[in-house]
């Protein structure tokens, strides 16, 4: 049976999500047994919108992105359940052949460290034109032309010279631009940017974020921006997902999240960042303790080991319900971490 296409024309259904992730669970098999790094995550992104995923290291934000791209390290990493609907396709069950077509063509990805993500022994041109040769079936000469075009678009000066250089000849910001050029070469519908600016200076970070949002406005793609920097989230995103210990603790439109955070972890994160308007040399509010390792995570409220309020036995062992408290604002309703007033 031919499945009817669910997205006949994106302009007719602009509010249909482009990517819809439901109850995604991803685990890793280790010597000590299975560790669930992403434990039931739901979110969706629409065209032209930017979704921010924020959380500390080890919270599962990168594993979520790798699951969508099916780039998990095999055989240890596996999607255990849930669904990833991208346009009219189910990516969880997609064969490797299908994913090769999707990756780089319909979904582009930028990685954190442009130094390690680029091949140091290949010229820039060869790495950028690969996407055109692979997905657009161009010959080498046309692919080279297309590469020069896209390099120019991402703001690399004199791209016709740069194209014959090696990654080490470029600065960090320029390398990240090359990564963006590779990710956007085929005009993808979705761009996943995993900590795209963490390794860069603030000034270059501002350039790169501006570039991504300009290209988004031009191409109309959806962007998933993964970061630990709430400042970057506030400046660029439409909707925010806050992750902790492999679960979403809160999800809301950006204005709502910053104005009206509900979960204790979100509140703690927002309080603990040094701001320019805070009195100098005063004690910063903190979140006590450290993120427990995944095998020591409580099965109930994951934040219970660090929250200010002592949790009872039931909330530590039973997973709290996750629900919508106002339109678009979702919270994990642990009775201690979520206390509506």
């Amino acid at each position, binding site marked *: 049976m031919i499945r009817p296409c669910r997205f006949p024309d994106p302009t007719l259904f602009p509010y249909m999500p482009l990517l819809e992730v439901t109850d995604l669970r991803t685990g890793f098999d280790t010597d000590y047994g299975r560790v669930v790094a992403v434990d039931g995550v739901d979110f969706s992104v629409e065209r032209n919108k930017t979704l921010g995923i924020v959380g500390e290291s080890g919270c599962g934000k990168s594993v979520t992105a790798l699951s969508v791209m099916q780039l998990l390290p095999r055989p240890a990493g596996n999607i255990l359940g849930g669904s990833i609907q991208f346009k009219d396709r189910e990516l969880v069950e997609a064969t490797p052949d299908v994913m090769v077509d999707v990756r780089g063509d319909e979904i582009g990805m930028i990685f954190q460290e442009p130094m390690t993500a680029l091949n140091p022994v290949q010229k820039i041109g060869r790495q950028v034109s690969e996407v055109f040769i692979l997905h657009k079936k161009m010959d080498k000469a046309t692919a080279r032309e297309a590469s020069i075009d896209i390099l120019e678009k991402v703001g690399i000066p004199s791209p016709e010279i740069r194209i014959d250089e090696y990654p080490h000849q470029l600065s960090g910001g320029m390398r990240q631009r090359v990564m963006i050029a590779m990710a956007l070469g085929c005009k993808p519908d979705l761009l996943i940017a995993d900590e795209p600016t963490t390794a860069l200076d603030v000034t270059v970070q501002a350039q790169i974020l501006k570039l991504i949002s300009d290209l988004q406005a031009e191409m109309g793609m959806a962007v998933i921006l993964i970061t630990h920097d709430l400042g970057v989230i506030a400046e660029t*995103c439409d909707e925010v997902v806050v992750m902790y210990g492999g679960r979403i603790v809160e999800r809301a439109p950006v204005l709502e999240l910053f104005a009206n955070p509900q979960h204790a972890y979100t509140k703690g994160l927002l309080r603990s960042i040094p701001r320019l308007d805070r009195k100098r*040399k005063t004690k910063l509010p903190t979140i006590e303790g450290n993120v427990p390792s995944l095998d020591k995570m409580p099965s109930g409220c994951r934040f219970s080991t660090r929250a200010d309020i002592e949790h009872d036995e039931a909330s530590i062992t039973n997973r709290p319900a996750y629900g919508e408290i106002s339109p678009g604002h979702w919270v994990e309703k642990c009775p201690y971490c979520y206390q509506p007033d």
Partner: protein
Amino acid sequence: MKPLLSVENLKMHFPVKGGVFLRSVASCKAVDGVSLMIHEGETLGLVGESGCGKSTLGKCMVRLLEPTGGRVDYDGSDITHMKRHDLLPKRRDLQMIFQDPAESLNPRHTIGEIVSEPFIIHGIGDRQERLAKVGELLEKVGLSASAAEKFPFEFSGGQRQRIGIARAIALNPKMIICDEPVSALDVSVQSQVLNLMMDLQSDLGLSYLFIAHDLAVVRHVSDRVAIMYLGKIMEIADADAIYENPRHAYTKALISAIPIPDPTKREDPRFLEGDVPSPINPPEGCAFGHRMDHPKWKESVGMDLALREVGPGHWVQPCPCCTNL
């Protein structure tokens, strides 16, 4: 007030070797004529983009690098070219905390061995006394004394940085050079470590040189802030003055590039094109005016660009392009 540590016209030029015989063909001017001072109990923030020479400057101050020009004075004595033997007692007072706690702790040593090493080097106490001291230090930085028997990999990033801090305060130093101490840490842990550093400062009367690229963090912990660009100081002033009344175009650009964690205050940052140029063959005149391709940059070539005082304790590099002085 007498400065605890001061540097005068400090230069650190690394030779760039090339050619068949590896002769030095050029020099990389990582630090190129920096003068500043740090007073007792004060925190001086040092900010700049990567490659501006801020870490090199920090290393010159504790003589991990031997500067190629200028002088470093510590507590009234010139330590620029002091012999190793004479320098050792000074090193007790001058300690350093490094950026990456995973790389600056020897993975094969226990925490006890790492933290007691300063005592061994300086021949302080016997084994028992050292053990007791280590326990005390670990508790002071918020770890348990039993951590002494563990290895670095058993700790998280924030805890490792606490161990690095325990090692740095072991000998009751007067001054600590902190090279990006919280850059590698998560937000919630970063504030814990910053609080610890501020507590230790008021308990032990420490002075800090706080090197970082996060301006919001620097502002929070510093009394004064110096802005560095391409091996030179562009502006130095009280922390409040730098943020409320920046005078140099580079300082303004840096401040405007900080993402503000408030979605109601979105604005386009004042745009700063390009990257930091290479410190090999830096441009003449005002280096930042050159990057901005400012029409008045040419006028700054050949000018005296020594810092000028524009307000009480507020020094800035005068040039027609960036400061209009």
